[in-house]
């Protein structure tokens, strides 16, 4: 199993959700978060003072997937999250040792 984590623009969440549903993903976890990448935030002027906003609002999407789906899933998420503008975010995949469905006790890929 793999854990796919995508940190994306909040405005792209709906598209990513739709794309994942269309692919057949059964569940996902979404968290509001903030961060910066190479763009290093931006400067805002408010009430006469300039501030650097270095933690840009982002959404973090986490999906567990069977090994064989992981590669394709990355492409699906990247395509849906892509706007071509700075700050589109990042997607990464890590191996997962085990997973358990709490209600039934199913383990491994069956729990997904």
């Amino acid at each position, binding site marked *: 199993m793999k854990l796919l984590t995508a940190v994306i623009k909040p405005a792209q969440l709906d598209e990513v959700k739709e794309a994942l549903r269309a692919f057949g993903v059964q569940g996902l976890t979404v968290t509001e978060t903030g961060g910066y990448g190479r763009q290093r935030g931006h400067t*805002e*002027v*408010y*009430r*006469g*003072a300039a*501030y650097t*906003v270095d933690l840009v609002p982002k959404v973090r999407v986490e999906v567990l997937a069977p090994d064989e789906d992981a590669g394709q899933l990355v492409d699906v998420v990247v395509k849906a999250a892509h706007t071509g503008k700075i700050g589109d975010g990042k997607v990464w995949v890590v191996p997962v040792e085990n997973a358990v469905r709490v209600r039934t006790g199913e383990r491994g890929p069956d729990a997904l």
Partner: protein
Amino acid sequence: MNGADTAFVLVSAFFVMLMTPGLAFFYGGMVRVKSALNMLMMSFISLAVVSVLWVLFGYSLTFGPDTGGLIGNLDHAGLSGLSPDSLTEQGGIPLLAFVLFQMMFAVLAPALMSGALADRVTFGAWAVFLTLWATLVYFPVAHWVWAEGGWLRELEVIDFAGGTAVHINAGIGALAAVLVVGERIGFTKDPMRPHNLPLVVLGAALLWFGWFGFNAGSALAADGTAATMALNTQIATGAALAGWLAYERLRHGAFTTLGAASGAIAGLVAITPAGASVNAMGALVIGAVAGVVCSWAVGLKYKLGYDDSLDVVGVHLVGGLVGTLLVGFLAVDGVGGPAQFGKQALGAFSVLAFSFAVSWLLAKLVQATIGFRADPDDETAGVDQAFHAETAYDFTAVGGSTGRDPGGPPAPPGTAAAPETAPRPGRATKVDA
């Protein structure tokens, strides 16, 4: 006694009472979430403290028989000698209605300063400073300006509803206190943006509404002067709001909600001394100038390096000066001119000098005795929890820290141990913007 005048002044007093809670919301929405309640309380406590002071000796020091043009005596301490049948000198309204009306001014004036000291002073020290400031700064200055025999009134300085006595006075007092207390931790580094702008707008709206009582009620009669003042209040406030937004859009690129709220207050402040002496066009000029100048002035704190947190100096001191000085030229009926301008400037700068000096000394006194400044840990964590044992909003669904403590009574609030042991709703999810 005139029933219509009495009803008008009483209702005006009720309007002005609402300004202090309005101010609490105006300031409360502007601070960060961790000190929102403290900001509300800093205004609200004035309703308690100054109401009591006013009865004990405030009214007498302000409007009691004059001593040398500087202060009233204590003939009316405890409101002695005032009965329901006592009438004002002009005979129009019961003296007790005037006592109530002016009490609301005395409550509001010191509360205005609280915005400059946001997030970082202990609540007890603020209450003490409030008491001292009302007694040694506000009561004397209000006497100078409004009381029979007060030296600025004898000089015929125009200050109809308190541009000098209230706004310049509180604005410069706030600056003095800020210079003693120092800047917030993180000033100029952290954005410290308002946590609840709808609350700011609500507060501004309540202030605007209450201000009709403040300004028109100062006529102490339901007459043409009151009507002029009410109309000019609306004109100047609209012009100032527009002026502030225009300046802000040109300089910084956006019409901010905070700017709209602040612009309205700047206009209200500026028309306060002047509104009964100018015509509608004069009110328009005063409002527009105040909106633009105050919008510029709130940036000064960054250039000059004083942390007037919620722009009390930029709005109340500068707005008060704009109105007080401009009326010197714009007053109708042949009053306006260089001679009147000179009187206005003398009045404004006398109050500036006196209030700055005494406020600074009082702040130093508080600082040196009981300490003015909150503990840095309390300031960083938020003074709401430290001094009030509460947080303004509890949106957390998890609430893991709100269970009853099985081991004994809660620690008293404000002790060093409180931040660690007191229940802290929402701590895990609070993110300070």
